[in-house]
């Protein structure tokens, strides 16, 4: 059981979140009253890991609708760090948003954030909550404005840049989204997932923009290649590479014999596509859909299979 508790929870991984939240009672101790438990555990488990685990459990419980356990986690965190701790304030806001019944309740949360921010303008967790709340209230332009304000003050926050890119993309502002993701990459240059994400964004933009399409498609191939270079069994990277190279080939963006050595020839792109498809096939074979370890990426595997089927007849 201990091994399962250590399983990392990331935002999109619903399955492991569910698994973690099912163990809420075991992690939080038998009695759900924090006061009786705190005395026994204070000396032995007052470590940073323990509290970051409680924070993860809190998020997992909120995701799976176990509000009562989430409340217990939150109480324990605010007992330890005090209710005025910025991170605890952010988590409390998250809890209130998650348990809000209707639109007016969410509006009330927003008003609360505004008051907090007027007292302490640089409360980063609350600023981020405010952006997320504005977004879920269907006010994306306000969310973008708030996020830009945040990034103006803290331009070294990769998470915020990524969110801004996502917001821009949802508004159809491709160039701005690309700029934001590039900023995120400047902060974390070795993250293959952001490289692949940027590649996806460039790929999408190259289908819509007119004059610049060839350059964007070429850059998208480059970023997928870099992503694969950094992590050589990243499914999204290969998937994107296969798609991007097929666009370059279909639209005849790659010259047969390039004048500039930096521009890849048509032959290279064809080789890249063959390589990507071959690796995708390999990944699909090695990660069976029923395998528990890859359960969280099941949808990605299915999508990859579908892509391979699409390419199969043309081969």
């Amino acid at each position, binding site marked *: 059981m201990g091994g399962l508790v250590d399983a990392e929870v990331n935002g999109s991984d619903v399955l492991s979140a569910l698994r973690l939240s099912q163990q809420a009672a075991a992690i939080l101790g038998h009695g759900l009253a924090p006061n009786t438990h705190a005395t026994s555990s204070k000396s032995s488990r007052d470590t940073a890991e323990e509290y970051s685990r409680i924070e993860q459990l809190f998020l997992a419980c909120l995701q799976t609708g176990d509000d009562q356990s989430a409340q217990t986690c939150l109480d324990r965190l605010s007992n330890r760090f005090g209710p005025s701790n910025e991170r605890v304030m952010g988590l409390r806001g998250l809890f209130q948003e998650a348990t809000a019944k209707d639109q007016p309740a969410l509006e009330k949360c927003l008003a609360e954030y505004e008051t907090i921010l007027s007292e*302490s*303008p*640089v409360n980063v967790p609350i600023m981020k909550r405010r952006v997320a709340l504005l977004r879920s209230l269907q006010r994306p332009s306000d969310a973008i404005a708030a996020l830009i*304000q945040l990034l*103006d*003050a*803290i*331009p*070294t926050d990769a998470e915020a840049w990524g969110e801004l890119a996502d917001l821009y993309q949802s508004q159809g502002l491709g160039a701005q989204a690309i*700029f934001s993701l*590039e900023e995120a*990459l*400047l*902060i974390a*240059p*070795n993250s293959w997932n952001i490289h692949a994400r940027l590649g996806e964004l460039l790929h999408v933009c190259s289908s819509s923009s007119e004059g610049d399409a060839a350059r964007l498609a070429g*850059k998208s*191939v*480059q*970023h997928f*290649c*870099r992503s*694969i*270079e950094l992590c*050589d069994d990243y499914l999204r990277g290969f998937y994107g590479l296969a798609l991007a190279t097929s666009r370059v080939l279909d639209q005849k963006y790659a010259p047969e014999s390039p004048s500039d*050595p*930096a521009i*890849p020839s048509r032959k*290279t*792109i064809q*080789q*890249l596509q*063959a*390589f990507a498809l*071959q*690796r995708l096939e390999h990944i699909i074979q090695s990660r069976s859909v029923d395998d528990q370890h890859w359960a969280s990426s099941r949808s990605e595997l299915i999508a990859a299979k579908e892509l391979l089927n699409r390419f199969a007849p043309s081969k």
Partner: protein
Amino acid sequence: MAVVEQTILRDPALFYWILFPISVVMILTGILRHYATVLMNTPPKPASTLAESRERHALLRGVNLRNHACAVLDRESFEARKNYLVNGFRSGAFLKDPNNRGQPPANPMTDPAGMEAMMGMLKGNMMMMIPQTLIMSWINAFFSGFVILKLPFPLTIRFKSMLQSGVMTRDLDVQWVSSLSWYFLNLMGLQSVFGFILGSDNSANQMAQQMAQANPAAMMNPMQPGQDPDKLFLSEAENLEVMEHFCILDGVEERVLRNFAPEVI
């Protein structure tokens, strides 16, 4: 010629009443110092306004661009970012209050934020100085001049000043250790003992403190009190200006094929 072994008759009580107490006292003060430092340590104050936060992070942004641009950006977007940052640094757009630009930096004694940082440093130094002074004078007052220990191995004459401080005997063999020297040996040599008792990042460790002071870039706030952010920005702008652009994404296609799929080519 046979070396004549010096023998000194030592009272065995010397061991129990000097050697042992000094070691124990040194360990205990180390532990006490650790907890006192933890208690008195004030965390660096976070920025209170958005403009102040921007001033702190702008420099990091320039450094990030300088270090990581080659992994991400093509020439066009690199030039755009470079021009933006250089302009911002030059015109003082990232400063907390651009109007105060060019004026001599405020006296850190009158600036409350600077005062606080200085207090923090002062407190840290006091935690080092006071116990050392006290123990040293304690040892000088009670145990000066005792020879308390004989090392089981021979040493060269150069170690005499290290091992026999407080004992002014020229002919005494270097193997003998005086009480004051035992104190110094403890002071320098107990780091690993503290590491064992308190964990590796303890504040009894003087070395760690000196490192922290020598390396301000590791801290959250790159600006030291009394330092003029404008000057830092200008030098960063210069660094950015002279930067040569290259991009590792150029030719990444061939590189990937070569490294990962030699059979396809």
